[in-house]
């Protein structure tokens, strides 16, 4: 769909990235959140049907629709910064979600997450050359053609060192946005991370950016690990970032939404009050935007010409490192494989690649412990955390990441089954959890049989310990049912008395 005039898009205000964990915030501070940004793939489940691998439940969409505020669809599954093109089934589901949630625009990441047929498990930075601009433009055009609303691309984080054979970050984003005629989702925390980590100063990044194309801004907090400032969405935004936003926002004539990003796993430590305070700060930014522009018509702001820094050469004509070669080398290194050629050796020497590789490991481990909860605890308690981690690392060395937590968990379960560790009850726990997972995915009831009482074991694992004694021998079954509204039948008194002959 061609980009409309930015002024046609509705002004949505301040919002929050959706996860079920933030719902208490919506209830306690309803006036602070005007828009929820929904990452559609986080609400899809796999079907295990290769012709239609994912589905979105009407229940999920109905629940999100009912939540207060407008909804924005922010995709995390078809990044448009590289050569991979979106699959038709992905586009179809995305279009359905956009229409159902009445999202006024759609955004996706200017990154890539696939290389030579495998998923990288992480948004990786694109090849920032003329060819890279062309590849990104093609991918964005795919989205524009399939979706009923305009498309914006998100500026990404990049933990790699800047390279002499690539465009500066801001120039690349500017050229892609102009070439594809799309909007920009300015993730200011990503740009802040890149600056802190030594890529490009924030002002230098912003100089070539067509500011009238910025429809949306992301703000977040991060954390430092091993000398890198990470885009972790782990708490309050740094004051320096807030100051940058306050300075920049009056210069964004078509800004329609400011979204605070918060990872749900950090919420228990951070607390809802902190998120509410951050939302209040975002409201002051939003008000500053209105004060700066008043209510008059939108005005296109002239921008500075894109000028690459002197120390960074413009991209070579006939660059030997094509976007596909870049994706292949960086993707391989990110998941722990070898990479061929000069670009492979150069990237392998970049300490940022090691950081990405370790972050992917944390993602993958988190997916496994988040889905196979009892199995993971049983392994950690039986073998110790270090051996459990060694098992994970061996699994990672043999299998690339999977895009969905359920897929990653099932792949690890299959790996464990083949490994045939001689641990009593491991096979039982694993069989039970795989059945639970299967029911969660397909909604079909299953019965798992046991030749001992499994409840002491399961109860102990839920409490983070091994059972004091094995369960007693007997025939037990657990019927695993889907979540559906259950009609409780009324019991007739006569029948009940026959059941309870002593009453």
């Amino acid at each position, binding site marked *: 769909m061609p980009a409309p005039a930015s002024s046609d898009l509705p002004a949505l205000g301040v919002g929050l990235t959706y996860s079920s964990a933030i719902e208490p915030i919506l209830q306690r501070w309803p006036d602070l959140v005007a828009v929820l940004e929904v990452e559609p793939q986080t609400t899809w489940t796999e079907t295990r049907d290769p012709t239609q691998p994912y589905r979105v439940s009407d229940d999920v969409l109905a*629940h999100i629709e009912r939540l207060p505020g407008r909804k924005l669809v922010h995709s995390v599954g078809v990044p448009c910064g590289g050569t991979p093109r979106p699959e038709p089934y992905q586009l179809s589901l995305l279009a359905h979600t956009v229409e159902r949630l009445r999202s006024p625009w759609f955004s996706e990441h200017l990154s890539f997450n696939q290389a030579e047929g495998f998923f990288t498990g992480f948004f990786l930075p694109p090849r920032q050359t003329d060819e890279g601009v062309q590849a990104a433009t093609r991918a964005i055009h795919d989205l524009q053609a399939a979706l009923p609303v305009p498309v914006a691309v998100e500026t990404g984080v990049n933990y790699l060192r800047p390279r002499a054979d690539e465009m500066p970050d801001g120039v690349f984003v500017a050229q892609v946005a102009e070439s594809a005629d799309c909007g920009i989702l300015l993730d200011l925390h990503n740009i802040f991370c890149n600056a802190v980590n030594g890529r490009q100063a924030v002002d230098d990044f912003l100089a070539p950016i067509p500011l009238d194309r910025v429809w949306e801004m992301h703000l977040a907090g991060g954390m430092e690990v*091993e000398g890198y400032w990470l885009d972790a969405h782990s708490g309050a935004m740094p004051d320096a970032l807030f100051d940058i936003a306050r300075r920049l926002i009056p210069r964004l004539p078509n800004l329609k939404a400011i979204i605070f990003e918060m990872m749900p796993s950090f919420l228990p430590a951070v607390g809802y009050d902190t998120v509410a305070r951050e939302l209040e700060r975002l409201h002051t930014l939003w008000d500053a935007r209105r004060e700066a522009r008043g209510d008059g018509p939108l005005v296109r702001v002239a921008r500075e010409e894109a000028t690459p820094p002197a120390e960074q050469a413009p991209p070579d004509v006939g660059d030997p490192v094509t976007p596909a070669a870049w994706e292949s080398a960086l993707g391989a290194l990110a998941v722990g494989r070898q990479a061929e050629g000069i670009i492979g050796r150069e990237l392998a020497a970049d300490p940022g690649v090691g950081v990405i590789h370790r972050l992917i490991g944390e993602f993958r*481990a988190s997916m496994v*412990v988040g889905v196979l909860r009892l199995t993971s605890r049983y392994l950690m308690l039986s073998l110790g955390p270090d051996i459990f981690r060694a098992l994970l690392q061996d699994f990672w060395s043999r299998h690339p990441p999977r895009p969905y937590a359920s897929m990653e968990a099932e792949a690890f379960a299959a790996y464990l089954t083949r490994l045939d560790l001689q641990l009593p009850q491991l096979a039982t726990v694993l069989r039970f959890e795989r059945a639970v997972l299967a029911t969660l995915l397909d909604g079909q009831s299953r019965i798992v049989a046991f030749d001992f009482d499994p409840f002491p074991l399961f109860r102990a694992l839920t409490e983070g310990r091994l059972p004091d004694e094995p369960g007693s021998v007997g025939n037990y079954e657990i019927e695993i049912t889907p979540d559906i509204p259950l009609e*409780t*039948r009324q019991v007739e008194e006569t029948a009940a008395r026959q059941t309870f002959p002593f009453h």
Partner: protein
Amino acid sequence: MPDRTQVARRLSGTVRVTMPASAIHNLDTFNKSIANLAEKLGHPRCFSGVDCIFMQERDFVVDPQQRVKAAGAQLTSMAAGPHPEPWATARPVTITLPTAVQFDLEQVQAVTAKVAGLLGCGQCHSGFDWRFRQELDFIVDQQLNIHAGPSF
């Protein structure tokens, strides 16, 4: 007096407990349900099945406070019978453990959305996924009261 294993073998009936997958996946709910079921049915620490009341299918439910109670109003009082239950037989036992949300479509949808979030694609961020460390901390805390730090 026969021990539990002997009783179980003598009874030889199959004990079936029915639970929604989402209630099992949420370990807090799973733990609370097992614990409350065990207490309700007469075994305070673990649910062995041999001490349970033998009832018909879907006679037990969990109320919003995750207390186990009989599904029908009439059964609520009748379930408080003598202990150990003298009507125990060797026929199969089925105990259903739906969560309270199963009686409310909107809550079912909320649970479905939450589960989809757990099983689906990771959220947009490029930082440190804390969930693995949280789980390690929990396990280590249970064993040694030592916490791991935020490093690789």
